[in-house]
């Protein structure tokens, strides 16, 4: 638990040190469309690097799909509470943008999406709705656990991308996008903690179960 806390703090510190220039605007701003960095994929990657890139984008896309549906599930249950509903809506809107960018990255790099898209949707909605039914604090604990795992996962991906030697402009841009998304996810984590995630019933157990589920899902989506 302490290790995880230290890791999270370290992620936050690194996140704060990163410039918040919006790398994702290369994909969301129509005036920047047609750029080599956003329309082509590197041809000079080794088979191992290509596999890493495809696995990373496949997992990221599946993760953003699941995150969207988690917030959807939470919003369905908690939208009656105006303040919490607004908070969830705000985070959900950010996840929608993340998913739109990941969809464009999947097409750009010609990556096979996971076969488990619909499973991610159903599991995400179920997780969001069930934790929201347990109360606002449990919903926030769910967000805290999910965003912790995703933040760590994005951090690992940045290290993998650093090892790629290609000079293709799409890779530095991808690193910028992942840094930006990592910071967004850690911001969600902070919001969850500030909104009493740790007051949730059986917080440690809930965090462990949700976190372990996320890690298993990441490994499955890399392959399937």
């Amino acid at each position, binding site marked *: 638990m302490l290790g995880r806390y230290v890791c999270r703090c370290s992620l936050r510190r690194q996140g704060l040190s990163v410039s918040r220039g919006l790398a994702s605007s290369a994909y969301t701003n129509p005036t920047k469309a047609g750029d080599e960095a956003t329309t082509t994929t590197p041809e000079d990657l080794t088979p191992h690097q290509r596999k890493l890139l495809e696995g990373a984008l496949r997992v990221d896309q599946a993760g953003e799909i699941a995150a969207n549906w988690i917030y959807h599930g939470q919003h369905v249950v908690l939208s009656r509470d105006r303040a919490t509903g607004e908070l969830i809506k705000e985070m959900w809107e950010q996840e929608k943008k993340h998913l739109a960018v990941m969809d464009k990255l*999947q097409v750009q790099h010609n990556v096979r999406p996971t076969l488990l898209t619909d499973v991610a949707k159903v599991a995400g909605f179920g997780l969001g709705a069930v934790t929201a039914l347990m109360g606002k604090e449990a919903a926030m604990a769910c967000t805290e656990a999910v965003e912790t795992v995703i933040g760590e996962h994005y951090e690992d991906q940045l290290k993998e991308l650093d090892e790629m030697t290609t000079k293709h402009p799409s890779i530095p841009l991808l690193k910028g996008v992942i840094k930006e998304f990592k910071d967004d996810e850690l911001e969600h984590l902070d919001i969850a903690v500030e909104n009493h995630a740790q007051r949730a019933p059986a917080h440690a157990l809930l965090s462990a179960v949700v976190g372990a589920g996320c890690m298993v899902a990441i490994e499955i989506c890399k392959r399937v």
Partner: protein
Amino acid sequence: MASSSKLLKLAIPLVRTHGFSREALARSVLELPAGEAHSEPLSDSAVSSLFGEGDKARKNLIEAWLVDGVRHMQKAEAESTSAPPTLRDVLRTRLQYNEPVLAQLPEAFALLATTSSNFHFVDPLPALHHAGRIADEACYAIGDKSLHLSWYTKRASIASVYTAAELHQLVSPNTAYAFLDSLLDKSAALSNSLGEVSLFSSYILKSWQGIIKSQGIL
């Protein structure tokens, strides 16, 4: 000594005259640039050492030819007046690539579908991989933006259309392009139903089995 991948590339044009044979592989060294070219074809043991024993060497040559065929599809992108090219253009380009070696293809596909084990059964994976690779390249060439599960249904639909057109081409080369066009015209409805695609795939699999049986492999 040139690398085996370089020799495989040099052997691809020889398929027209020597088929997907060990002979084509042996003669690849004669096609090396001046100074590197050998005066005699490779010995059988050298072919085995570089490309594998028996039919394994032939399978490697077939695989190299199929990979080259995917590369050939990019010609459609370069030659297309519209950007990106249409699906019709891309699949036609791939069918054209088959034309010089049509006579050798049934045996080549049959060889790919034959397992090296003692049990003689048809392995459908090479055929599926072949069609899937062409469908994926075609989608990339035409700038397809399918997401999530529609990514799979789109490729399954194109793979089915292409495989049917290719099978038709083996039997009736002159009408293959018209057959492809007619399939593409009907494919919109096909891609909307995964169930229909799987049904269609089972027919294609049966056709493959029929062709392999007709070649006397089984």
